[in-house]
């Protein structure tokens, strides 16, 4: 058996694409949510003076990298969780009984999930033109794309870790409320972190999305807390750890 089976990875990826394309209401919902955040938060706090905000940047613009980070966080975590849905509807057994290595199955799934979440992130990036946001240049765009990819892999890995440890989908909303939302709020996606009380700042440093959002902000609006390479390195490290642990746990799991 080949450990990496490209045909199998492709067909798993293709399946994700078809499923997503056929659930159009879900695509629309996952694009509208971040768009609402951009619009309502952006307009609502347009005139507010927010301490810690870079001087020449208005709040709507400040928000864009954060909301892209948020989109990546939510869509990727859900993609990582999609194994649980397959488990619930029985299809996982069909996948697991085939002579395809578990690693190829995981890669196919990650490829599918990452494609979809990057696609949604890019839509938000382009739609933010409406709010006066401009991408600084082609190099910045490519760097943004790369960072989005890493953020996506990271949270697919996280979703995978949780999905492998859970028996059914009932715990999903619990994870969203008590893990995903805190990651979102503590990442500085919608406000600067500099003004946070000290004990909360410690939490923000533990949150991997903090570095993702900070990196995106560095590339897109030229303002950040950490140097870009630092953000990038931390993000990459967490990404590798989550993916390895997630794949390992998935390989160990039995289908009952």
């Amino acid at each position, binding site marked *: 058996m080949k450990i990496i089976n490209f045909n199998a990875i492709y067909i798993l990826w293709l*399946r994700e694409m078809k499923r997503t394309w*056929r659930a159009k209401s879900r695509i629309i919902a996952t694009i509208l949510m971040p768009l609402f955040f951009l619009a309502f938060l952006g307009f609502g706090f347009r005139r507010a003076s927010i301490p810690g905000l870079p001087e020449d940047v208005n709040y709507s613009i400040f928000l864009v990298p954060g909301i892209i980070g948020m989109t990546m966080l939510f869509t990727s975590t859900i993609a990582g969780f999609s194994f649980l849905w397959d488990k619930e509807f*029985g299809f996982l057994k069909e996948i697991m009984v*085939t002579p395809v290595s578990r690693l190829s199955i995981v890669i196919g799934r990650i490829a599918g999930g990452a494609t979809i979440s990057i696609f949604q992130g890019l839509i938000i990036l382009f739609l933010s033109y409406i709010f006066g946001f401009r991408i600084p240049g082609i190099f910045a765009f490519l760097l943004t794309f790369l960072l989005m990819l890493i953020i996506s892999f990271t949270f697919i890995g996280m979703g995978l870790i949780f999905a492998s440890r859970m028996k059914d989908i009932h715990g999903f909303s619990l994870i969203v409320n008590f893990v995903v939302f805190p990651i979102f709020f503590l990442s500085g996606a919608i406000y600067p972190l500099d003004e946070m009380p000290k004990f909360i700042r410690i939490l923000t440093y533990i949150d991997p999305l903090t570095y993702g959002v900070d990196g995106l902000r560095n590339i897109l609006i030229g303002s950040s807390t950490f140097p870009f390479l630092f953000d990038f390195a931390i993000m990459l490290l967490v990404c590798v750890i989550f993916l390895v642990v997630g794949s390992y746990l998935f390989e160990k799991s039995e289908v009952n």
Partner: protein
Amino acid sequence: MKNGQAAIVIKNLTKKFNSFSAVSDISLTVARGELFGLLGPNGAGKTTLIKMLATLLKPTSGQAMISGFDVIKDRNEVRNSIGIVFQETALDNKLTGFENLDFHSVMYGMGKKARMKKIKEVLELVELSDKSDQLVEKYSGGMKRRLEIARGLIHEPKVLFLDEPTLGLDAQTRRHIWDYIKKLNSEKEITIIITTHYMEEADYLCDRVGIMDKGKIVAIDSPVNLKNTIGADIIRLEITGEYEIDIFKNFDFIKDIKKLNGLVNLSVTEGESKIPLLLKAAQDNNIKVISVTLNKPSLEDVFLKFTGKMIRENEANAQDINRENMRRGINR
């Protein structure tokens, strides 16, 4: 039978969930081309046994070989040589019938040409060719089953597992699927292992039937031979009030007596001529008989003989329900 000729050889196979043995110490050999049935109530361990053979669960102890491959050591060779239709539907509803089959054949490493040829062939076999471009969510229960059977055949498995293939289907569709299964077995010479808790199904389809109860195979033979172990007709008396079955023990012609709440099952030969004698005896002993039925032996009676209970779900006793819940809780 030599191991080399057998499709499946199982030796002392056991699966424990915590302290609960879902399958305990089963040994079994199934010949190539055989249509073998596992008959038993829910929670008897049929599905657990199948899942171990299909490499989805690791056995706690024991050994199983499929087409000469070990289900623990040669997982991928085993996966390549088996097809399986699960008890619960395992289709992707958001894909069409064709796409489900195509997904499967790519996962089994088939080339494009072979895929198209095989998919066309199996679709024709299960008469779904004209529905293959519809999303599976639009399929009826019977169509889904047929599609799953088709899918199980694409990669030309040597052994096909069918776990309760007709569960929840109407009588007509069930008949239809039985005919497919027979056809597959005779024309393609595929070894088929089928689990069921329908007596007629096992009786109609299987060359040999293994009766499973509480994780063990309690009897194994052809349906005819199994019925012959009853060796007689069954007279079933429905009785009200307290009674002792001892009064029937005086009759030499009664081979076996089984008491089941208000029912007494008596194994006799030439049942029709024995009914008057039994009724008289009952009357003499002040036992109130409400009704009498005479049955020629069926697998149901065989099942009752070996397990001491009826197979139908609604007659499951509290202990069985407990076991079932336990199994579900652990397996989920």
